[in-house]
């Protein structure tokens, strides 16, 4: 079986700066995997290459939606990649602040709807049905994430933890097979993090998702991940199960700096 995400020799340069250096990795269907590394290691840049925000300098990115053929997505625009089933959240929350929670999720449904300009203006039966359906679907997603109480609040008025969850709800609305979460637990308290862990597990099981996440919270990473990739200075320095990673000397060195022998 092909990997849902297969990245070969990905390199991304900004001017003279190499943010991602020759990274190859693959993610299997149904897994929860993490990408970790010190600040500035190139994790978010890696995500941005995969989701089309940046066009990588070199390398190949292939996706393989379950039950479909493998395809290359390098250089595609982000919206095309989302249409193909990659949903993502943002590290520095990027909700539509002045829209309601429900509307944020409805926007996520965009690529799964068909109404065009004429449909919108004439508002025929199919458009009406679609509009009804999108509201229902979006509300169901809010139920799953536990945000229905806020449905008609503006996104900017939500507490921080709820904003992070709304990012996930919105990504879910795009019907992804692979969910990319960029630091979903950042700024959460331990209780919220525990809830988030349960949520991610539930989503993986009920929605048949593959989850790929960037995270600094090691308790979350270690308890969720089946496979962990570690990057430092743009290069992949280790990969393996949580136990393997905990023992890996290079990883420890990357996080703690040069260990001086006592």
């Amino acid at each position, binding site marked *: 079986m092909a990997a849902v995400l297969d990245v070969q020799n990905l390199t991304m340069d900004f001017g003279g700066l190499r943010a991602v250096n020759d990274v190859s990795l693959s993610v299997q269907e149904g897994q929860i995997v993490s990408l970790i590394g010190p600040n500035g290691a190139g994790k978010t840049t890696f995500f941005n290459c995969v989701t089309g*925000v940046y066009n990588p300098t070199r390398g190949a990115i292939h996706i393989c939606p379950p039950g479909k053929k493998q395809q290359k997505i390098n250089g595609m625009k982000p919206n095309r990649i989302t249409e193909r089933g990659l949903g993502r959240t943002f590290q*520095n929350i990027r909700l539509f602040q002045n829209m309601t929670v429900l509307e944020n999720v409805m926007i996520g449904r965009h690529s799964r709807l068909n109404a065009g300009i004429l449909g919108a203006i004439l508002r025929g039966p199919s458009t009406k049905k679609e509009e009804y359906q999108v509201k229902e679907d979006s509300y169901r997603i809010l139920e799953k994430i536990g945000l229905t109480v806020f449905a008609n609040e503006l996104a900017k008025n939500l507490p921080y933890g709820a904003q992070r969850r709304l990012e996930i709800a919105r990504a879910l609305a795009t019907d992804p097979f692979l969910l990319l979460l960029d630091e979903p637990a950042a700024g959460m308290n331990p209780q919220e993090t525990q809830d988030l862990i349960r949520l991610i597990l539930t989503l993986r099981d009920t929605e048949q998702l593959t989850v790929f996440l960037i995270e600094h919270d090691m308790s979350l990473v270690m308890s969720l991940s089946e496979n962990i990739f570690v990057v430092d200075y743009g290069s992949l320095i280790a990969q393996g199960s949580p136990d393997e990673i905990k023992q890996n000397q290079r990883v420890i060195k990357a996080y703690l700096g040069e260990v001086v022998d006592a």
Partner: protein
Amino acid sequence: MNVQYLLNLLMSGLTKGSIYALIALGYTMVYGIIKLINFAHGEIYMIGAFTALIFASLLHYMGVNMILILVISMAFAVVFASGYGIIMEKIAYKPLRDAPRLSALISAIGMSLFLQNYVLIIQTERFLPFPRLIPDFPFLAPIQSFISSRQIVILAVTLVVMVFLSILIKFTKIGKAMRATSQDKTMSLLVGINVNKVVSVTFLIGSATAAIGGVLIATYMGQINYKIGFLAGIKAFVAAVLGGIGSIPGAVLGSFILGLTESLGTGYISSDYEDVFAFLFLILILTFRPSGILGKPETQKV
């Protein structure tokens, strides 16, 4: 190919470019600091020209020497135009500093309409003849067919202003504060920079250079009316964007490119389409370099 014709066109292009540069500097500095397209900036230039006309006439009736008139009336134009600039900022822009950009832009358009009509009502709607304050220098007689004394003065004054500004921004304390504020307003406040003062000084300098431009163009063209600020303002804005708005060398470069394009376009193609050349050139440049020639591309942190 007629070399003299070409040289004349180049000279008049450079002269025009100088004037644009003097106005464009204000645009670009204000934009750098508060991210506002100051639509009313062209009116400051017009007010500078009117103030100079008023004082020049007064002094002329008193029988003062021409060169002295030029210097004194220019000084008055600078002082009063700066006053207008600072008051304008206090009224129309300061309360809107944290408002959406569109609100500030509309406020600037309102200010522009107000100032234009203020001069129309209080002064006149007619074209006023502006005295020729720059005499023909005798030492220029041999090369007069290439360059006139007025052109020399305009180029020289522009050069002096540029050098002065560069020194001010590079080496003085207020210059450093201005650069810091244009990078990050909040951080500048935190490190103790008086942002209100910086903004006022920026308007003061921008208005002063615009007023100098106003006086120079008025004596070059020989007449002024309340409308001259509008088109000149738009052109200078085009020049500032062309060079990369927010960048001071960009504004100067953009202005000279614009002046030369217009001059050569009118000289060799058609004078009916003078403004079209400027605008077409702008569109062309921005299509290939969306942030202007010397502008830094806007990077968005994702």
